[in-house]
């Protein structure tokens, strides 16, 4: 199945792009994709799982993803 990953703020700088569509096996959780990002980017190696949004709502990182989901890792927010 396919999942869309969105990158914001510092994660966009690190990933070098705004989004990705990734092919993942059934049963993949958001946390698995964070693990993959940490493995792919040295700058994230020691960074704990940030808040996670699935389809524009905060979600548990252990939530199992579904085909077509839009996933975003939310770096520390700094509004106001």
């Amino acid at each position, binding site marked *: 199945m396919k999942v869309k990953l969105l990158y914001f703020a510092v994660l966009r700088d690190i990933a070098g792009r705004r989004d990705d569509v990734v092919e993942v096996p059934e049963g993949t959780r958001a946390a698995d994709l964070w693990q993959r990002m940490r493995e792919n980017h040295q700058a994230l190696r020691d960074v704990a799982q940030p808040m996670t*949004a699935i389809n524009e709502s905060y979600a548990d990182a252990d939530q199992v993803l579904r085909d077509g989901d839009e996933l975003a890792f939310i770096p520390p927010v700094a*509004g106001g």
Partner: protein
Amino acid sequence: MSYFTNEPIDPAALVRGVMRPSDGAYVLFEGVVRNHNEGKAVESIDYEAYLPMAEKEMAQVVADVRAAFPEVAVAVVHRLGHLVIGDSSIAIVCASPHRAEAFEANRMAIDRIKQTVPIWKKERGPDGEEWVGWQCKHG
């Protein structure tokens, strides 16, 4: 209606849009770009948001404030893009028949917005640039 703008904020318009004849007070809060943060000089800030989600989260904050203070009318606008020293990044107006609720509601609104709405800022200064809240240094 959007809670976000790329243009300078007009607080007077925000007040006009929220005041009812029954209101005896309004509290206006503006967050302003300052020239320092955590001991470092700041020259400008770039704000960005995960827009569709940020609109929803902002609406949730407003709904929660209205639930906590039923007599209070709330208006919020957050600016995005490139801001310089002295620019307002956010304006919140809480109007109420009485002042106490307006003060409390405004404080609740800004505190909640800072906790939950997916907005980020990159500070730029003579020492480089940095995403606020991120432990690594970039740029």
